[in-house]
């Protein structure tokens, strides 16, 4: 990263922090032995990275950690004389999310077992990113709701809970729903690769010749 011509600008997000950067390359010379994969295989390499990114975003143990933190919060947070967890509606949402997290953990063990046997992950794997990010976002949403007005405190305010982590997570996890292949792209992948549903018709595609003329990658997977 210290090669001349690389400029990194922190990219501030809706959370108020800079979780990633814009990176500009101006005539950067990269030695041939530092190419990852082969020349012209950038899309393949990037896609492999995206695959790992999706797997990481869908980590069921991370969901379990957030859920345990939420349970702790709801047992501590007071509403009048009672606790947040004593509220039947909030508690019902909590148990519903616990069931979702348990299902994702079981799903994760199923994928792991398949992978150890050298079998494909199939649908169980295709749905992980979409489902996990959704469940994670709902966990943060419930935490904010359980805090009531306290839920809006942020920016190191007095009385802020957990260093503003729940609000930060609520926003950051929306970013994760979008990043690593948006939820809508995940649904295309689940439908087309998992359910083998028909792809978009040819008329709506940019023809390969047109792509070639524009110097674009012609692999159809470019859509993913």
């Amino acid at each position, binding site marked *: 990263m210290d090669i001349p011509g690389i400029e990194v600008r922190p990219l501030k997000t809706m959370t108020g922090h800079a979780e990633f950067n814009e990176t500009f390359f101006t005539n950067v010379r990269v030695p041939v032995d530092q190419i990852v994969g082969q020349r012209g295989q950038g899309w393949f390499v990037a896609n492999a990275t995206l695959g790992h990114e999706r797997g990481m975003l869908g980590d069921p143990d991370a969901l379990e950690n957030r859920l345990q933190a939420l349970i702790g919060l709801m047992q501590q947070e007071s509403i009048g004389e009672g606790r947040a967890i004593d509220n039947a509606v909030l508690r019902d949402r909590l148990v519903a999310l616990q069931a979702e997290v*348990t299902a994702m953990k079981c799903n994760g063990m199923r994928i792991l077992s398949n992978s150890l046997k050298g079998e494909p992950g199939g649908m169980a794997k295709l749905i992980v990113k979409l489902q996990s990010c959704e469940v994670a976002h709902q966990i943060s949403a419930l935490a904010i709701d359980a805090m009531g007005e306290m839920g809006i405190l942020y920016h190191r305010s007095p009385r802020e809970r957990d260093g503003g982590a729940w609000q930060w997570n609520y926003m950051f996890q929306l970013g994760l729903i979008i990043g690593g292949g948006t939820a809508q792209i995940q649904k295309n992948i689940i439908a087309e690769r998992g359910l083998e549903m028909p792809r978009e018709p040819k008329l709506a595609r940019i023809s390969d010749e047109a792509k070639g003329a524009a110097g674009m990658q012609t692999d159809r997977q470019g859509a993913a």
Partner: protein
Amino acid sequence: MDFGLSQDQQILRDAVARCLADTSPLEHVRECAGRDNPLSDTIFGALHDLAVPAMLVPEEHGGLGMTLLDAAVVAEQLAYAVTPAPFLASVVLAPIALSEAGTNKQKCQWLPKIARGEARIGVAISATVQARDGAGVQFVEGKLSGTALFCLDFEGADAYLVADAGGRLHLVPALASGLKATRLTTIDRTRSVGELSFAAVETDPLADDGGTASARLRDAGRVILAADSLGAGQAMIEKAVDYAGQREQFGRPIGSFQAVKHMCAEMAARHEPCRALVWYAAHVFDALPEDASLAACHAKSLTGDVHRFVARTATEVHGGMGFTDLLGLHYWFKRIGFDRQVLGGPEAVRAEAAALQGWTRAA
């Protein structure tokens, strides 16, 4: 660790699926669903040939001594073919109750017959979950009085297992004096349920275990209903995907439109984790009993919600055709509706799950 179905379980699944593809085609389901007693003797006979009734009967009583996970594998296939056959009460719950809490005499009298497909027992434990309409059965001076609703596998039962107000189970012959049995008609015409009224009926009680056995039945019943919901949901998703691939509009299959494609993807995304959860809940019923109740609650409530969404969405993908009787899609829709309500809907089951974890303050 190996989280998945064993090779034997995969063979069982495929054998039951083949059997039902032959014996439970939609025409036969329609014919059965039009009758007062929908339970099909032909299908039950074919399942008997596969030794399904013997699955959960212990080996010393002439059964196969299999596990709840094996039964869940079968339940999924039964629902996939909307099979009108007795299963939940007579093949799963009755053998578990008798094995875990029956007297030696009860075991010897009933278990071998259940295994041979010669006796069927209906099960009425609904009041231990939520009593409605003042239902409940009292055990006073050796006799039963009161009403038990939603007796499962009702038609053709030779006896009924009934939970009293203290959760103790009782075996009552179908022809017992003072017992009145009335059919209840539900949306799901592939299942048979009824109401039992007792007026000082002689009973043959199972162990006085403080409700342990009826709680086990609740867990097992919820897991099997969740597995049923899973099978019905699987069938509905496949039908929606098939239909969307064939039906054309504006010169292209409707499945190529993202509006339709994304409905199918959402169904699959919510449905698939349920499969692993149902396997887990079924597995811990035998392998890790202290985790069984919570896992059963999770499986029952999650499938209840997810498959309500699947039932509705798969029907919408079919457009007007989904709403008609022509495709018979509604049989799966109604099966899912039944699975959701029976032995506790999602909210009731989640309240129990909260109490199990000490999250509910005693009132």
